[in-house]
């Protein structure tokens, strides 16, 4: 990339379970083409998938911005949705407000946010109830 920055935006639609996973799959493919090392791609793919799924499951609409520099891969995830009232609680492993239907499909393990944090070198989450949620995720290269 000769020191430049790669940037790409993706839209995610809330409730669209059919296309869920498409954005993270595309991000993984882009990183592979750029030549990012496989162990880094694995970590980013986990974070991207969980972030994408949370928009699909809980928000109305959202966006993922992928940026790659020679130093980091960064995901900025933002959604328009109900927001998170208690972030500390939401970050706890096993905590989930997923519906019975979602759980029956294997969603709602309450591992999404904790796994994003685990796989990121830097992770920030902000949320405003009634407005939406934003995540900043960085993995150092």
């Amino acid at each position, binding site marked *: 990339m000769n020191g430049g920055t790669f940037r790409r935006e993706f839209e995610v639609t809330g409730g669209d379970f059919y296309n869920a*996973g498409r954005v993270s799959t595309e991000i993984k493919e882009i990183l592979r083409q750029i030549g990012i090392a496989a162990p880094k791609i694995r970590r980013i*793919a986990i974070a991207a998938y969980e972030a994408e799924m949370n928009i699909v499951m809980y928000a109305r609409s959202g966006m993922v911005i992928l940026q790659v520099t020679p130093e980091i891969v960064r995901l900025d995830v933002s959604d328009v949705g109900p927001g998170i009232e208690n972030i500390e609680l939401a970050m706890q492993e096993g905590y989930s407000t997923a519906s019975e239907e979602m759980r029956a*499909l294997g969603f709602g393990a309450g591992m999404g946010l904790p796994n994003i944090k685990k796989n990121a070198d830097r992770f920030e989450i902000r949320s405003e109830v009634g407005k939406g949620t934003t995540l900043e995720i960085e993995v150092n290269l």
Partner: protein
Amino acid sequence: MKLSEILQQLDAAVCTHPERADTEVTGGYCGDLLSDVIANAQAGQVWVTIQVHSNIVAVAALKDLAAVILANGRKPQEDTLRKAQEQNVTLLTSPMTSFELAGKIYTMIAHLDLGSGCR
């Protein structure tokens, strides 16, 4: 071990991409919680699950899994088949339970490891 060798012993039917039967299998993972599988399955493994909806395809593709085996004779949904076809994911079904499948596959792979250790 090749996927085809496992296939023969599992009474499994191939739903998509039979041409990928010579894919190398490095191990396996069992789970029906997608976040658990996304976090813990490793590239090259076969994934044994009872989930049949189309989101399993994205998980398998993201993790570069060798194949997804639907246990208990479960059949993939129509859109699951379509997506697996599109995204190059090998989908199998077997009448065995997850427990039986895991046991068989584990034994086959462990046996192989022992064998190579003695050579």
